[in-house]
């Protein structure tokens, strides 16, 4: 490939796109393999960054390699070995703890890293000795390759706050000797649950963004789905992973219909079901069936099953509400959470009427665990509105409005306040 000439600019764009694509697809793979050599997450990150920069030049000269991930891994590991040889002080005093027998060829140049390295990285980022917000930040930084600035923006904190959070977490991994490994079978269920919780949190943050002009932050939603896909590929026998991926796909299938052309939020019953992503629903539903098979299903499998019942209903009215009630009861059984109780109450309204649901919500409200959770007054307001108790509905909508900053949700609640105010003769 020659430089200059009219084709050069086009080539450069194509190369840049190929590198960006490899950044998205291969970052975790390359970083996880490089961390083995550097035994230090910071140093690994630097070497991987350098490898991506080097790729821009090298791929322009030699063409894009058939396996970009392997090329980048080799480049990053070479860089790591060079740096280690040149600068002995870089050998961290507290090297990342890697089990010795796990990869005999760790220092063999160009040796393909085993897929498990990405799992090691993910489990290290989501170690329970790290705070949840640090787990999320580290996962997005190290596994997804997001910049600190991008993560800060997604979670509405300043870049310096996020940088400090990431630095503190990395320092704890090294100082407290958190091992770079996949947990043993005995601890796996708990540790995997923490990983899945982090992925789910990334998804929900994107699905209903805490701020910014849009209801959905597509980048975070897509990252979460990619993470779930990686986990699914690496641990195909874990049914809760199938459940989580199914949940994310089926939920996200409705993305295009959750707001109208003006960005106003639409409820499930107002959405145009013909626009739901059939491919995602089918893929997700198949995963749900798999996740429910063989033994007691976990909380992600059951949530996915609930989402699938909604997704497969021809219309809101034709939804299989009794089936949903059964699923919610099973979910509550293994995961007694007030949020689940609240969602169950919405189903109770469809099966036994709004008054029964209001009674359930009154109990949830009384125990105080959902204080400050805007979906509680919003659900209550909706039930009161349906019972014609518009005055009470209005105060409940106003209470919900006070508790959310998402503009699409605020718009929706404000419109409801206006509607019930008219009905109330205000």
């Amino acid at each position, binding site marked *: 490939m020659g430089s200059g000439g009219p084709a050069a600019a086009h080539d450069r764009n194509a190369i840049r796109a190929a590198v960006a694509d490899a950044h998205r697809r291969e970052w975790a793979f390359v970083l996880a393999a490089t961390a083995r050599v550097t035994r230090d997450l910071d140093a690994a990150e630097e070497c991987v960054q350098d490898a991506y920069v080097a790729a821009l030049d090298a791929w322009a000269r030699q063409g894009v390699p058939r396996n970009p991930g392997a090329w980048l891994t080799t480049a990053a590991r070479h860089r790591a070995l060079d740096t280690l040889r040149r600068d002995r002080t870089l050998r961290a005093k507290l090297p990342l703890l890697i089990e010795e027998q796990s990869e005999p060829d760790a220092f063999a140049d160009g040796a393909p890293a085993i897929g498990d390295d990405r799992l090691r990285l993910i489990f290290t980022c989501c170690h329970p000795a790290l705070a949840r917000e640090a787990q999320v930040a580290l996962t997005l930084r190290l596994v997804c390759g997001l910049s600190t600035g991008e993560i800060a923006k997604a979670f509405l904190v300043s870049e310096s706050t996020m940088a400090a959070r990431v630095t503190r977490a990395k320092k704890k991994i090294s*100082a407290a*000797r958190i091992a770079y490994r996949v947990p043993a079978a005995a*601890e796996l269920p708990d540790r995997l649950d923490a990983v899945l919780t982090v992925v789910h949190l990334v998804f929900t943050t994107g699905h209903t963004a805490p701020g910014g002009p849009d209801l959905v932050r597509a980048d975070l939603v897509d990252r979460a789905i990619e993470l779930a896909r990686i986990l699914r590929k690496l641990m195909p026998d874990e049914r809760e992973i199938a459940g989580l991926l199914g949940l994310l796909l089926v939920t996200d299938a409705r993305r295009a219909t959750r707001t109208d052309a003006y960005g106003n939020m639409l409820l499930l019953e107002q959405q145009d079901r013909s626009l739901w992503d059939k491919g995602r629903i089918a893929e997700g539903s198949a995963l749900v069936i798999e996740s429910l098979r063989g033994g007691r299903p976990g909380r992600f499998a059951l949530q996915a099953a609930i989402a699938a019942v909604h997704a497969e209903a021809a219309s809101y009215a034709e939804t299989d509400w009794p089936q949903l009630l059964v699923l919610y009861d099973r979910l509550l059984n293994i995961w007694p959470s007030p949020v689940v109780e609240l969602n169950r109450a919405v189903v109770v309204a469809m099966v036994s009427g709004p008054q029964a649901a209001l009674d359930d919500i009154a109990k949830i409200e009384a125990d105080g665990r959902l204080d400050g959770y805007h979906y509680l007054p919003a659900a209550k307001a909706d039930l009161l509105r349906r019972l014609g108790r518009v005055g009470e509905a209005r105060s409940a909508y106003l209470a919900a409005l006070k508790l959310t900053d998402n503009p699409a949700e605020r718009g929706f609640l404000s419109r409801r306040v206006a509607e019930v105010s008219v009905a109330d003769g205000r």
Partner: protein
Amino acid sequence: MAQYAILIYEAESGYASGGEDAWQTAMESHGRFAGQVGEKGGKILGGDALEPTSTATSIRNDVVTDGPFVETKEALGGFYLIEARDLDHAIEIAKLCPAPFGGVEVRPIMDTSGG
């Protein structure tokens, strides 16, 4: 192997109101704990129980005052210095450490050898 401190924080009132029995039971548990650490592949390098905070004297900027540095419901009442493979191993050991009136905190020992 790495070194960790297991710091035992407990409500002193637990032992005060539980009397000799509570103390005796706790001492027996600590005796068993010492054996369990070895079975888990760790090692106890040291440790002791502390007299209650009512016996503490604090010194800040040469000013000597009666009492602990910070008044808390659960006070540092004892510690172990242990050796473990990594944090997971240390946590596994610390979970066995008796603290009937509170809990324990695991802290890595800083390597100050400068090598």
